[in-house]
């Protein structure tokens, strides 16, 4: 997916952008509202991540102006405030959702997915491999014309594999992506989710291979 990140703090912008690129997203970065307007005028984005405290103005005013001018792209506000009234205020101004800094990227991704799904569930972002067609936004998988609904963790697991086919993921790495950092996760739990995904894929030409002592890999036969 293609993101526009509007954030004045260069360090944070770099950190967020590199984290998102790791998931295969394209990220354009604007440090000021003026740059952001230029990006919006010239490019098409799936989603805008908007900080609300910027050196050249308030992100909420910017948002209201662009919404009034017909901007239709979903917007998720990044806020440093935790006051509830502030959060509600930005939703009233045309934001689709908000996350509070510091944010969990898995949560941000979940929110992006939820926003896109609410917004007509645009299906242009399907990923294909062999007989498998995966729609990460709608959260389902088609194997030879048959549609399977995926639970969230199955979906995220599959997404990880599809973003890097042929790469080996250790159980620890998978666990870090699937579970929050404060949950105690046994290696068994990972095996359970891999097992479920294997079952969904068993009628296709795509399979998950176990590499003893190393982890798992998605292969196309």
């Amino acid at each position, binding site marked *: 997916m293609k993101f526009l990140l509007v954030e004045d703090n260069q360090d944070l912008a770099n950190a967020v952008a590199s984290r998102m690129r790791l998931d295969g997203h394209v990220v354009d970065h604007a440090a000021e509202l003026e740059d952001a307007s230029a990006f919006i005028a010239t490019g098409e984005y799936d989603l805008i991540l908007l900080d609300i405290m910027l050196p050249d103005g308030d992100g909420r005013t910017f948002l209201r102006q662009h919404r009034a001018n017909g901007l239709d792209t979903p917007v998720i506000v990044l806020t*440093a405030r935790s006051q509830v009234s502030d959060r509600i205020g930005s939703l009233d101004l045309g934001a689709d959702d908000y996350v509070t800094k510091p944010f969990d990227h898995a949560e941000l991704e979940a929110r992006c997915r939820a926003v896109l799904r609410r917004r007509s569930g645009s299906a242009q972002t399907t990923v294909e491999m062999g007989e498998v067609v995966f729609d990460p936004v709608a959260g389902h998988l088609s194997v030879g014309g048959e549609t399977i609904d995926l*639970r969230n*963790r199955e979906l995220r697991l599959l997404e990880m594999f599809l973003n890097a086919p042929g790469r080996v993921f250790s159980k620890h790495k998978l666990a*870090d992506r699937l579970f*929050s950092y*404060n949950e105690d996760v046994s290696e068994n739990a990972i095996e359970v989710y891999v097992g479920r995904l294997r079952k969904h894929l068993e009628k296709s030409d795509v399979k998950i291979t176990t590499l003893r002592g190393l982890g798992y890999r998605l292969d196309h036969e």
Partner: protein
Amino acid sequence: MSDSPTISGSLRNRLATILIGGAALLALLLFLAVRNYAVQVAQQGQDDILMASVTSMLDTAAIRDGSVEVDLPYAALAMLDTPADDRVFYAIYRDGKFLSGHEDLAVAASSDAERREVFSTQAIRGTTVRQVSARRILIGASQRVEVQIALAQTQDALAETLDEIRRNTTLLGLAFFVLAAALSFWATSFAVGQLNKLTTSVTRRGPQDLSPFKKPVPQEMGPLVRSLNSLMGRLDHSLSQSEDFIAEAAHRVRTPLATVRSHAETTLQRVDREENREALRSMIRAIDESSRAAGQLLDHAMITFRADHLEREKIDLVELAQDLAVRLSPIAEMKDLSLSVCGDENAPYAGDPILIQNAVRNLVDNAMKYGPADSDIEIGVHTGSRLCIVVRDKGPGYPLDEIGQLHTRFKRGRNAGDAVGSGLGLTIAADVAGAHGGSLELTNHPEGGACAILLL
């Protein structure tokens, strides 16, 4: 919660006392002035008649054959006739020697030789009389005779007239007093009423309303309203400054935390050695813990403030629960939890939506923390005998021996384990329920799982 001012007397009472006291004094003065004037006028009337009478008597005095003759004219006595049948006494003297009439009646000597008549009030046989003494010099062939006449009249008619005047004057004074007192009451109430109006409009304001007063006020209250407005202006300024300060401080602290967290996540993806990975994980946990605690402390402060100045508005609790479910479902989905709203279709209620939303959010946060994967969390909104919002999970439930202390500040359940939390969530929910006149009940559902009931 606000200090009562030190009360020193009442403006209304003081004003009323001064005005009514003044009115009483004025009424008394009016009474005395009118009465004295009336007495003078009435006395003047009697004196004029006595004078006319005595003059006409003296006019008839003449010297005939060396003796003095006084012919009392009938008119002279008739004019002294009164409705009260006052008695008249007279005495005629020649050069100080009694000639005729009433012997007890002496001629009053005039201190002023030029004045021919002297008025006096005196008693004859126990009766008060008004007396005039007048003299006339008669000059005959060889002699010069001074004739003096003393004429006195009792004062019964005059006393009656004076009584009547006194009665009327008293009535007049009383009427003046009553009218003036009524006017003072009205004036005092009007003046104090203006103050009360201002007080009401100050009291009616919401806690956030610090805008200046625009309504017209009497000129005398101008300075008060001006300084009130300037006070509120300063308060507003310092409030918004401290709000800006908190926002700026949060921004300054949270932005670098967000940078660290994002870098840590990225690095975690790239690092393979388990000891490095564990360090990164605990770093992320620490960041989450600190930001969550800071957020909840701020929320708790805001909730304490709003609960002190509760502003109720009409809301639908079902709608509120559904909004919250939409907002929280991405987080729930990450744990493969599903959030559902059940119960009644409508639950109209008058309360503070931000407070209630925050309370329910904290309950759902808890449920998501302890609910096992692939389970349901229900947010039930029930009208019935008492309005309540029930949040139920399928987790291990509350430890029964600790259930009573869980909503005290910073108290966390024994089974909280590694779950990130500040121990403020249930405190916030209980405070919100308390502010709305309700309570928070924590139970374990008979079929398992924790069940938090927010009674409103």
